C-alpha cells in the first residue's frame, strides 16, 4: 500500500470543508440572488459604511497586536528564563485561559465590565461613581487582547526556549553586556517567533465578531459582525460572500507582507 493513501481521509475532509465552501463563496460573491453573474456585490462593498467598518476592524486588530506583543514578549521572555524553568504552576496559569472556549472568556470579561458588573459594583460599594466600562472600543480591545495574548506568548516562548544557551554565552564571551546580548543575539533570533505571534494574533483579531458584539454592547460593528449578519439575519449570501472574499484577500496579503518582512531580516528566510 502506498504511503500517500494515508492522506486520503484528510484530503476528503479538506475537499468537503475547505475547498467546496471556498468555491461556493467565490460563486456566491460573483452572482446575484438568481444565480446570474454580477459584480454588484463587490461594488456594494465600496460604500463609506462598510469601508469605515473595515477600517475600524483593521486598526483595532493592529492595536490589539501591538499590545499583545508588548505584553507577550516580556511574558515569554520571563517564562523561558532559567529562573523560571522549575516553576510549572505559573506557566499553566498563564496558558490556562487558552484552554477555555473564547466565548466563555468573553462572557467572563463581560460580567466584569458590565454596568452592574463586578468592577462597577465594587466601585459603588467603595463610594465611587459607576464607570462606563463596556460598549466602547476600549472594552472590545481589552477583550481581544485578553483572548489573543496567549497566541503571542507561545510562539515567542518556543523561539526563546529552543535558543542555544551557548550562543548567548558566546555573545557574552565576545564582550556583550546583558543589554547587547539581548539586542544583538536574543532578539534577532526570536524574530521568527514574533512573526508567527503577530500572524496568530492579527488574523483572528481582524476577523473578530462575537467579542465586538458582547463587549461593544451592539454599539458598533466590526467586519466579522457584518459578514455574520449578512448570512444569518439578512440572508444575503451573495453580499456576505463578497465581503468574506475581500476579508480573505486582505488576510492573504498581510501574511505575504509578514513573510516578506521576516525574510528580509533573516537574510534568506533561514527559518
Amino acid at each position, binding site marked *: 500500500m502506498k504511503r500517500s493513501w494515508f492522506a486520503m481521509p484528510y484530503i476528503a475532509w479538506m475537499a468537503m470543508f475547505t475547498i467546496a465552501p471556498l468555491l461556493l463563496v467565490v460563486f456566491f460573491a460573483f452572482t446575484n440572488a438568481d444565480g446570474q453573474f454580477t459584480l454588484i456585490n463587490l461594488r456594494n462593498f465600496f460604500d463609506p459604511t462598510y469601508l469605515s467598518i473595515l477600517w475600524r476592524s483593521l486598526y483595532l486588530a493592529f492595536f490589539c497586536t501591538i499590545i499583545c506583543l508588548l505584553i507577550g514578549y516580556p511574558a515569554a521572555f520571563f517564562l523561558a528564563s532559567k529562573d523560571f524553568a522549575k516553576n510549572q504552576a505559573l506557566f499553566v496559569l498563564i496558558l490556562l485561559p487558552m484552554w477555555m472556549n473564547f466565548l466563555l472568556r468573553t462572557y467572563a470579561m463581560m460580567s466584569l465590565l458590565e454596568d452592574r458588573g463586578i468592577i462597577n459594583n465594587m466601585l459603588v460599594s467603595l463610594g465611587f461613581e459607576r464607570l462606563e466600562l463596556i460598549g466602547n472600543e476600549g472594552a472590545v480591545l481589552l477583550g481581544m487582547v485578553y483572548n489573543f495574548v496567549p497566541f503571542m506568548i507561545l510562539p515567542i516562548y518556543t523561539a526563546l526556549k529552543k535558543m*542555544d544557551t*551557548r*550562543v548567548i*554565552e*558566546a*555573545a*557574552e*564571551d*565576545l*564582550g*556583550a*553586556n546583558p543589554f*547587547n546580548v539581548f539586542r*544583538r*543575539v536574543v532578539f*534577532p*533570533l526570536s*524574530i521568527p517567533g514574533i512573526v508567527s505571534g503577530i500572524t496568530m494574533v492579527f488574523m483572528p483579531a481582524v476577523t473578530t465578531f462575537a467579542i465586538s458584539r458582547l463587549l461593544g454592547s451592539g454599539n458598533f460593528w466590526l467586519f466579522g459582525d457584518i459578514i455574520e449578519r449578512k448570512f444569518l439575519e439578512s440572508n444575503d449570501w451573495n453580499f456576505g460572500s463578497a465581503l468574506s472574499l475581500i476579508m480573505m484577500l486582505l488576510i492573504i496579503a498581510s501574511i505575504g507582507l509578514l513573510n516578506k518582512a521576516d525574510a528580509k531580516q*533573516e*537574510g*534568506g528566510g*533561514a527559518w
Partner: protein
Amino acid sequence: MSRENALINLIGIHKSFDETKALDGIDLFIDKREFITLLGPSGCGKTTLLRIIGGFESPDEGQLLFEGKDILDVPPFKRPLNTVFQKYALFTHLNVYDNIAFGLKLKKLPKAEIETRIKRMLQLVKMTGYEKRMVDQLSGGQQQRIAIARALVNQPEVLLLDEPLGALDLKLRREMQLELKQMQQHLGITFVYVTHDQEEALTMSDTVVVMNEGRIQQIGTPKRIYDEPENAFVANFIGESNILSGTMIQDELVSFAGGEFECVDSGFGEMQPVDVVIRPEDVMLVGEDVGQLTGEVTSVLFKGVHYEMMVQVGDYSWKVHSTTMQPAGSKVGITIVPFNIHIMHKEESSHEA
C-alpha cells in the same frame, strides 16, 4: 602549585552541581604563551574548569587569579579572554563577516580597522571570500574555522577551546590540530584546550593536565605524561599499557608476574607493594627459552603499522605491539629492558580501570 609570575593561577577550586562534585580542589597555574591541555574522560570536570576560567560558572570555593588579580567577580564580557565553544555556537542570524565582527563592533573599533582585521583573520583560517555566506551554509570544518576566527580577531591574551575539533572527522581533525598549534605559536597567545582525545593532547600541548573525577591526576609535558605516568589512571588513559601488581624488593629491583626484574626506579622503600606499567610496544617477544617470562600467544590482531598480540603468562594477559607477528598458539618468551619498566605507587582510591 600556584606561582607568582604565572598568567593564570587557579587556587583550591571546588565546584559541585547539586550533589555531584565536579571539581574537588584544583590547583593549577598557566604561563603566558603556554599551550595547556585539560585532558580526561567525560565528566572529569575539565569543561567545568574551562567554564570557570571563562566566567560561565563560578566555583563554590577557591580563587582565580589573572595576572595576580582575582577575577572571579568579573563577568565574562569583561574578561580578557575569548572562547571557542563546543559545537561552535556561531550566530545563525549573521553572516560570516558579521559573526567575526561581533566582538570588534562592541568595542566600537573604526570600520576600516574592523575590515582589515577580519580580512587578516580570514586569511589566517583560510576562509577568504566567505564573508557574505550565512554560517549555516558552511561545512563543520568551515564553521570551526569561523568560530576560531571570531574569537582570535579580538586578540585575546588567552584563548579557551572547549573540544573544538570534536565534531570533525579524523583527517580534518589532524589537519586542524597542526594549524591550531601553528597559529598559537605564530600569534603567541596562551591556549587552554579541553579534550578527551589523548592523542590530540599529546600532539599539540606544551603541558598536559590529566584529570579524573574532579581532580588533577598529573601535570607534565606530553613526553613525561606518557613515559612516566604517576598512577594507574594516567597510565591507562594515556595510550595503552600493561598494569601489573608488583613488589618493590629494593631500589632498582622489582618483582611481578612471578619474576624479578631490574628497573631504574628507586626510593620506593623495600618490599613495598607497587603498580608496574609496561607499554605494549616495550614488551619484546623472544625465543621461549631466552625470555624473562614465558607465555602463549592467544590472539593476533593486525593494526596496520603493527600487530597486537595477547600473550597469556600465568593469570595475566599481556598486550604486546610488534611489527613481527607470532602466530596464535605459539610459545614465546617475554623480555623487558629496565628503563621501560615504570613503577608507580599503589593507588589509594580505587581507580582500577
